[in-house]
C-alpha cells in the first residue's frame, strides 16, 4: 500500500486530513527576530528526550532509600549504554531548562504574550513551574550526598514561608526530615503527577499556539512581512536544530558524564559549599545576601515573599502590559533586561562566591 493511500485510509477513519490541512496552512513570519521562534520547539524536543530516556531509566531504577543509589550505579556500570541514557537524561534536563528560559525571555521581549495570547503565556508560566518541579524532584532520585543536602536546603527554604510554609514542607518531605519517604514521594511526583499535569498543560499550550498563530514583535506589527511555510520549511529547520541537539547531548554524555558521587548519609554533616542546581542558584544566592533581619522581619521570609510577588507579577504580565504608548514598552523592556542581568549576575556570584 502506498503512503498516499494509507493517508487516505486513515483520513477516512480518523479525520487526520484536517490536522494535515492545519499544519500545511501554518506560516511563520520571517524577520530579524525569527531565530527565537525555534526555542519553543527545541524545548519541546528536549522534553520528549526526557520522557523517552526517563522511561528507559524507569526499567532499572528502584525508588527506595536503600536501593536507589545502587540501582543508578547499576545502570551506569552494568547495563549496556546505561551510562549514555543516564547522562543524556541529566544533561537534557539542564539543556531543556536553559532553552525554556530563552524561550520565555524571547516571548517576553517580543511581547508575544499580548492579546489574544494571554492564556498561552499563563500556561507557559505554569509549564515553567512544572519544569522546575521536574528538575527539583528528579535531582533527588539518585539519592547521593549532593542531592540529599540540596533537597534538605531547598525544602527548608520552602518551610520558611509564613503560615503555609510548615505544612508545605511536611507535604514535600513526607515528614519532618528528608528520608526515604521523601524519595518515594519525589519519585511519584517526577514520574506520575508532574507528567500528567504537564501533558494537559502542554497540549493546551501547543493548541493555543496553533490557534493564534505566530506573533510578531510590536515594532513589526502591521508590516507586510515575508512568511515561510511551517511545513516543510520551518519544520526542516527545526529538525536541523534537533539533530544538532542530539549530537550535543551525545557529546556531553561521552565527554562530561554526569557524576554519581557518594550515597546519601543522613548522619553525615553537609558538604561545604552546598548549593542547588544552577537554575535555582540566583534565588539561593539572593537569600544568602539578604541581611538576617529587615526592620524586625526575618530576612529570608522577606526574600521569599519578594520572589513570590515577583513571580506573580511575571505570571500576570499580559494583564499589566496593556496596549500602551511606546514609552510603556520601553519600561517593560528595561525591566526585562534588569531581570535577566540580575539572574545571570547572581548565578555567576553563586558559583564564584
Amino acid at each position, binding site marked *: 500500500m502506498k503512503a*498516499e*493511500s494509507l493517508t*487516505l485510509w486513515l483520513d477516512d477513519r480518523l479525520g487526520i486530513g484536517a490536522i494535515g490541512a492545519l499544519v*500545511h496552512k501554518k506560516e511563520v513570519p520571517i524577520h530579524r527576530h525569527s531565530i527565537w521562534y525555534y526555542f519553543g520547539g527545541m524545548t519541546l524536543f528536549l522534553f520528549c528526550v526526557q520522557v523517552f530516556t526517563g522511561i*528507559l531509566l524507569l*526499567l*532499572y531504577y*528502584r525508588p527506595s532509600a*536503600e*536501593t536507589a543509589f*545502587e*540501582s543508578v*550505579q*547499576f545502570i551506569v556500570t*552494568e*547495563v*549496556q*549504554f*546505561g551510562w*549514555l*541514557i543516564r547522562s543524556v537524561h541529566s544533561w537534557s534536563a539542564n539543556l531543556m531548562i536553559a532553552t525554556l528560559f530563552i524561550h520565555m525571555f524571547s516571548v517576553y521581549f517580543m511581547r508575544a504574550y499580548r492579546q489574544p495570547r494571554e492564556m498561552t503565556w499563563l500556561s507557559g508560566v505554569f509549564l515553567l513551574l512544572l519544569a522546575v518541579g521536574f528538575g527539583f524532584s528528579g535531582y533527588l532520585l539518585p539519592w547521593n550526598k549532593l542531592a540529599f543536602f540540596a533537597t534538605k536546603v531547598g525544602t527548608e527554604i520552602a518551610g520558611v514561608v509564613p503560615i503555609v510554609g510548615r505544612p508545605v514542607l511536611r507535604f514535600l518531605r513526607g515528614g519532618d526530615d528528608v528520608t526515604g519517604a521523601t524519595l518515594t514521594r519525589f519519585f511519584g511526583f517526577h514520574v506520575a503527577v508532574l507528567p500528567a499535569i504537564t501533558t494537559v498543560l502542554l497540549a493546551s499550550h501547543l493548541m493555543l499556539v496553533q490557534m493564534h498563530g505566530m506573533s510578531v514583535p510590536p515594532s513589526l506589527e502591521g508590516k507586510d512581512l515575508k512568511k515561510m511555510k511551517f511545513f516543510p520549511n520551518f519544520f526542516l529547520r527545526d529538525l536541523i536544530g534537533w*539533530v544538532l541537539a*542530539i549530537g550535543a547531548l551525545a557529546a556531553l554524555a561521552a565527554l562530561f558524564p554526569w557524576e554519581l558521587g557518594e550515597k546519601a548519609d543522613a548522619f553525615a554533616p553537609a558538604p561545604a559549599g552546598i548549593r542547588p542546581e544552577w537554575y535555582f542558584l540566583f534565588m539561593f544566592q539572593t537569600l544568602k545576601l539578604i541581611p538576617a533581619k529587615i526592620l524586625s522581619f526575618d530576612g529570608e521570609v522577606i526574600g521569599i515573599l519578594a520572589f513570590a510577588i515577583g513571580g506573580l507579577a511575571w505570571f500576570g504580565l499580559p494583564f499589566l502590559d496593556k496596549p500602551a504608548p511606546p514609552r510603556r514598552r520601553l519600561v517593560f523592556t528595561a525591566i526585562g533586561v534588569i531581570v535577566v542581568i540580575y539572574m545571570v549576575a547572581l548565578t555567576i556570584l553563586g558559583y564564584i562566591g
Partner: protein
Amino acid sequence: MKGEPRLETYERLGECAQCPNRETVAPGMSANSGRRRFLNYLLGTGFGATALAIFYPILKFLTPPRVIEAAQNSVTAGKLGDLALNSGKIFKFGNKPGILIRSASGELKAFSAVCTHLDCIVQYQPEKKQICAPVTTDNTTSTVKTLEVRRRVRWKSM
C-alpha cells in the same frame, strides 16, 4: 483504483497544478529531479543511519545485563550449612568487607571486617574464639566496628 487522482504520473503528492500543496517541478527544471532524488536518497540514508545510531544503544539498554540485579542493602553471605559452628567468613557488603561469625552456640553476628588500626581485613580464629587482625593478633574484638543496625545480613538456609 477508482476515484483516486492519477498520482502515479507525478513524482510527489501535490505536483498536480490544481493541488494547493505544490512542490511542483517547474517546467524546464526536470533536470533537477535527478539531483532531488539523490538528495532524498541521501537524506533517507542519513536518517536511517542516525536512527540506527540511536536505536542500537537503546536496544542494548533494554537487553538485561549479565548481572541481573543491583546490589541490595542486604547481601547473601552464604549458606548456613557452609558456616560451621565457631567459624567466621568474610563477605562483600557493597564496597566494604564484612565478617560473619557463627559462635559455638550457633549465634550469628556480622561485623565490619576492617580493623580500625591499619585497615587490615580481620580474620576469625576459632581456637581463640576471637577476631584477630594480622598486625597485632591481640584481642581486637573491641576495636572491630559493628555494622550499622539498620543493615541486616541474610543467609540462605540449606
